[in-house]
């Protein structure tokens, strides 16, 4: 089957799922907010208007400005903070996944291609990583190093490499036995070149699916850390930080916690739906089962 036809078929399978279309639209909106928060937000997210504190949603403040999602305890516009919060989530989510993916893929490829002692050592390390409660590791590292965007990316990224390593190793073990890898080897290609040209492209489908779910996990972790007061500094709007502040007023001012939580929930849901659709489109096992009517 020509490569373009396989790509076309996968794209068609992917876009045929309504959940994938929903996920794509929501994510496009979140990405737009992350890229252009200054243009989309109606106000400065940190501008305090103490006379307009706790303005309910869809109400005008005393100066006549519409607070679509209300204002918080310092009179800051919640819609603007939610839009700016998207940048924090996207930045940390994607950076952490890039880091985890780079480390995990390198180790997974090494384990799969070299086998033997390297494979054993890397996989036992991965087992140890899985055995340790991640959130505790994260708060311990943040407790020692201090909270900052860089430290959160490092801790979330370096705590999740094991998933990528396992998936890439499993795929590599299958790919390295294929005839085209044998052919490349017999043509005298070096091992790094074989990995780069022949193995990596063939494990990338699974990698994309895992990375998609990884972004959702990283965004939730960042929000969880910010909720605990161990995430991004308070001056930077983040959905988790907004939820932590809103929790104190939940009995009387529900909107402080409702909207940042909803933004987080919808974003994570969209990423997961996209991940499910990608897995369905890229997994040849699922496709073959669908073809014989087993699903």
């Amino acid at each position, binding site marked *: 089957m020509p490569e373009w036809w396989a790509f076309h078929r996968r794209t068609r399978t992917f876009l045929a799922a309504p959940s994938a279309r929903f996920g794509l639209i929501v994510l496009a909106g979140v990405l737009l907010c992350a890229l252009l928060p200054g243009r989309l937000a109606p106000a400065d997210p940190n501008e305090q208007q103490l006379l307009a504190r706790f303005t309910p949603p869809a109400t005008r403040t005393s100066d006549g400005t519409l607070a679509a999602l209300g204002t918080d305890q310092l009179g800051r516009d919640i819609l603007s903070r939610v839009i700016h919060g998207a940048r924090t989530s996207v930045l940390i989510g994607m950076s952490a996944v890039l880091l985890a993916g780079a480390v995990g893929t390198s180790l997974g490829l090494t384990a799969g291609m070299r086998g033997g002692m390297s494979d054993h050592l890397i996989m*036992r390390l991965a*087992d*140890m990583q899985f*055995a*340790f*409660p*991640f*959130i*505790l*590791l994260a*708060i*311990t*590292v*943040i*407790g*020692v*190093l201090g909270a900052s965007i860089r430290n959160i990316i490092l801790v979330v990224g370096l705590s999740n490499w094991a998933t990528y390593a396992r998936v890439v190793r499993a795929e590599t073990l299958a790919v390295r036995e294929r005839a085209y890898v044998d052919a490349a080897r017999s043509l005298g290609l070096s091992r790094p070149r074989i990995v780069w040209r022949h193995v990596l492209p063939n494990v990338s489908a699974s990698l994309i699916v895992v990375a998609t779910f990884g972004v*959702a996990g990283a965004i*939730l972790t960042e*929000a*969880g850390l910010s*909720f*605990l*007061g*161990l995430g991004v500094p308070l001056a930077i709007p983040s959905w*988790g930080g907004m*939820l*932590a502040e*809103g*929790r104190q007023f*939940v*009995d009387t001012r*529900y909107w402080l*916690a*409702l909207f940042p*939580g*909803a933004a*987080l*929930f919808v974003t*994570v*849901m969209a990423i*997961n*739906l996209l991940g499910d659709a990608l897995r369905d489109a890229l997994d040849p096992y699922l496709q073959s089962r669908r073809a014989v009517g087993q699903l």
Partner: protein
Amino acid sequence: MIAYLVQRLAWAAVLLVATTLMVFVVVHLSGDPTALYVGPEGTRADYEMVRAALGFDRPLPEQYGRFLARAARADFGRSLRHQQPTLPLVLERFPATLKLALVAMLLAALLAVPLGILSALRRNSVLDSCAMTFALSGQCMPTFWLGILLILVFGVHLGWVPVYGGEGLRALALPAVTLGVWAMARTARITRSSMLEVLPQDFLRTARAKGISEWGVILRHGLRNGAIPIVTALGLELGNLLGGAVITEAVFAYPGIGRLAVEAVVNKDIPLLQAVVFTIATALILLNVAVDLLYMVLDPRVRLA
């Protein structure tokens, strides 16, 4: 079977030592951990005194050796804030977290397994769609947001349960549901897919042909054979629940070990943090051994290997 057991116990011991190494490395990530103990207001003399007293002036391998020897005696030093040995502080809070995690787990298992089985039996029906939408939503729901929403609805508006604090099962209801939703969602999905694998198998047809009732076939033959992934998921979930309790306890001001961990981080109480991490990690490692033992009960292939 004995070889399998010995292998799992040896691996648990390796993991315990690895945990001490991880805790040691994390504490030394900042370079010299003395500053964490002295704080910004300490003088140079305080700094030197603490450094010598805690042995941070010794070479790193020696420091790790001493740390390991103390960890073997369950001695993680004195809490800087509470000014008393750390382990009793942690063990005092641990039962509350364990109770919360177990109730959450029980809720998850009792709801998720029947839901997963029904979804698999009525595949592509309205029930299946609703159950899987619920499962997907549960997996995407930030626990801290769910906790706040539950407080808002059941605590503030309906007044059914105390918002914070309280005694007994009523006080445990909201934290347990909050903590258990993720596990419930995941277990329901795993049960469904595991049962979908088992239901078309020939041995179920044979069981039906022998005249066993439909529910007997499904529960005694189907579920028994589909149980391995479900038990694995639930075993792993209990680990996640113990770790994830950190956030749930913060939402509900629940007096457990997770809240103690956050307090330790906020107060820079490193000895207390070490004790919390080590206690939870040890509990998880023992739990994994227990799950491995359960495999032997469930799967004759493991028992006879």
